[in-house]
């Protein structure tokens, strides 16, 4: 059996980056505070000490320029790993993802590659309020020419980061701040988690639950509760939201004939909308119930703890959604 080690999500990300930097001198980190303190939460701490300031680059507060720099450096053959900090700040770099990084290879007739990773945190549950708690992966799931991954725990965080760094396309890597300190046993030896495949967390026959990012934790709790009530849920952790691993979802729904998607982002125009639309189109005759979504309501996230709690999806809400379908 593989040797295992207990590690939290933050360190899993840190180790993945450090391992890849040791492996490949073209990998470097860049962003606000990433060098000295290792980012506001210390995710990249130690990197500058090990690899030097040339490979751990602190920048001014210029999100657009950070991602723009990634595009140019990647076209020139480097492999930047940038940090954008809270995902809300990515509004300032939508241009560089949408019109530049994701289109460049196609526009230029395949002349360049765009191997860069941008890290951004979703922070629901952290009480950080409307300018620091958004989940905006939906916008980036609408962009061909790039990838979006959403790890859910230390294992997937490490394996997806390593895959993201080795990928030759822009990868938006979405980190769950509220899970940073959650620990898990993960292999000591190198492993990768592939981009573009969902993980089957639990097998089940009654209903498929697709979880996105840190909502896996809530989904796992829900699965246990449902089991106690005699409902066998199959849980898929989506892991990648662009390109969406639809085949994995179809395979599961063909088995269970029911589907609920849970994500921290809003329901309206969230990933769940695209999944539901595709599944009902593809598997219309397989579905025993409508595809349901357990997601945030169409309002803003509050810093106020009670309001924030009400806003966010959780295991209980998911259980209720599932039971609504079992009818």
């Amino acid at each position, binding site marked *: 059996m593989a040797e295992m080690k207990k590690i939290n999500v933050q360190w899993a990300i840190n180790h993945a980056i450090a391992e890849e930097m040791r492996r490949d001198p073209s990998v470097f980190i860049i962003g606000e505070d990433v060098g000295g303190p290792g980012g506001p939460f210390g995710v990249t701490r130690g990197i500058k000490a090990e690899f030097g300031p040339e490979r751990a680059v602190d920048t*001014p*507060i210029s999100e657009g320029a950070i991602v723009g720099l990634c595009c140019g450096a990647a076209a020139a053959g480097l492999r930047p790993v940038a940090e954008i900090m809270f995902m809300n*700040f990515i509004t*300032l770099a939508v241009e560089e993802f949408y019109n530049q990084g994701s289109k460049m290879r196609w526009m230029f007739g395949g002349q360049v590659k765009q191997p860069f990773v941008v890290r951004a945190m979703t922070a629901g549950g952290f*009480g950080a*309020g*409307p*300018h620091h708690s958004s989940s905006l992966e939906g916008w980036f799931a609408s962009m061909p020419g790039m990838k979006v991954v959403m790890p859910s725990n230390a294992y997937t965080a490490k394996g997806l980061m390593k895959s993201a760094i080795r990928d030759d396309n822009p990868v938006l890597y979405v980190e769950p701040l509220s899970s940073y300190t959650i620990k898990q046993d993960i292999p000591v030896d190198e492993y990768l988690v592939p981009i573009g495949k969902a993980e089957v967390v639990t097998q089940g026959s009654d209903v498929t639950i697709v979880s996105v990012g840190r909502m896996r934790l809530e989904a796992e709790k829900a699965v246990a509760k449902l089991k106690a009530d005699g409902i066998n849920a199959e849980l898929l952790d989506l892991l990648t939201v662009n390109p969406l691993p639809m085949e994995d979802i179809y395979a599961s729904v063909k088995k269970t004939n029911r589907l609920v998607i849970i994500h921290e982002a809003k329901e309206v125009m969230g990933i769940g909308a695209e999944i539901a639309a595709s599944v009902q189109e593809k598997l219309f005759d397989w579905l025993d119930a409508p595809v349901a979504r357990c997601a945030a309501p169409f309002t803003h996230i509050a*810093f*106020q703890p009670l309001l924030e709690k009400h806003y966010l999806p959780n295991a209980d809400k998911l259980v209720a959604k599932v039971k609504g379908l079992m009818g």
Partner: protein
Amino acid sequence: MKISKDVKIDLYTRMVRQRIFEDETTVNFASGEMPGFLHLSQGEDAVPAGVCANLSNEDAIYTTHRGHGCIIAKGAEIKPMMAELFGRIDGCCKGRAGSMHFADVKTGCMGSNGIVGEGMRIALGTAFAQKYNKTNNITVVFFGEGATGTGAFHESFNMAATLKLPLVFVCNINLYAQMTPKSVHIAVEDVAVRAAGYGAPGVTIDGNDVEKVYEEFAKAAKHARAGKGPYLLECKTYRHHGHFEGDPCNYRPEGELEEWMKKDPIVLYEKKLKKEAVLTDKEMQAIKDTARKEVIDAVAFARASAMPEVEELYKDILA
């Protein structure tokens, strides 16, 4: 410029009220009673005081994630501010949004901001309206030296210059943006030199000297009120606390904080006021006591205020 006794007392009072509010906040946050994310500005108190003593309720300010001081100096009521920090329904924003999203429109506090630099872009609009409506009012936007790296800084300054808007840019140099020193953000010593690139005046001053801030800002305000366009006032200061409450500050060089504590703007000003016989120790203490009572009352008010009902989440989304 001769500063009157009344103004001196006013400047002192504005600083003291900010400081006591922030110190009390520190305590309530540390105890866990206050939720969220807090960025405090003890040590930078002279800048909002000196600036806002030149402003009326019809003048507007925009501030940052570190904005309590500005809003208090501008004259917002303290009770609803404290209730906001506690996440209560009587908060100035109904307890929804907290520290980084304060606004008190009736006193011209048009918003704190969690997004570094964005206050500058929005401030353009208030200044535009002031000019459009042919008023004599001005808008002031506060920001840190970290924010000078943003596209927002440049777009706003450039547009304020081309449209000749009554907008004063007040940059607080507190040596850090989060944990990163100023040199990472700015390749020149004084950011004020950038104003020349927009045909505007730019002045660098000691931001811990409240009278200096008052006098220099008066010039900036005069310039803006006269329809001459934007002005950049750079104030060198220091924050005593971490970037956010809980920040261990291990990026600070040994002794740096101690040096700056000696230059605490309130301590410096107390010495001066005493020397000039503007206020006695006792009078200063009275001002502090009044402020403290006000803040303590605000905490009581906040504690007594109800938590918002979940329906609040769905109100005020669309007008």
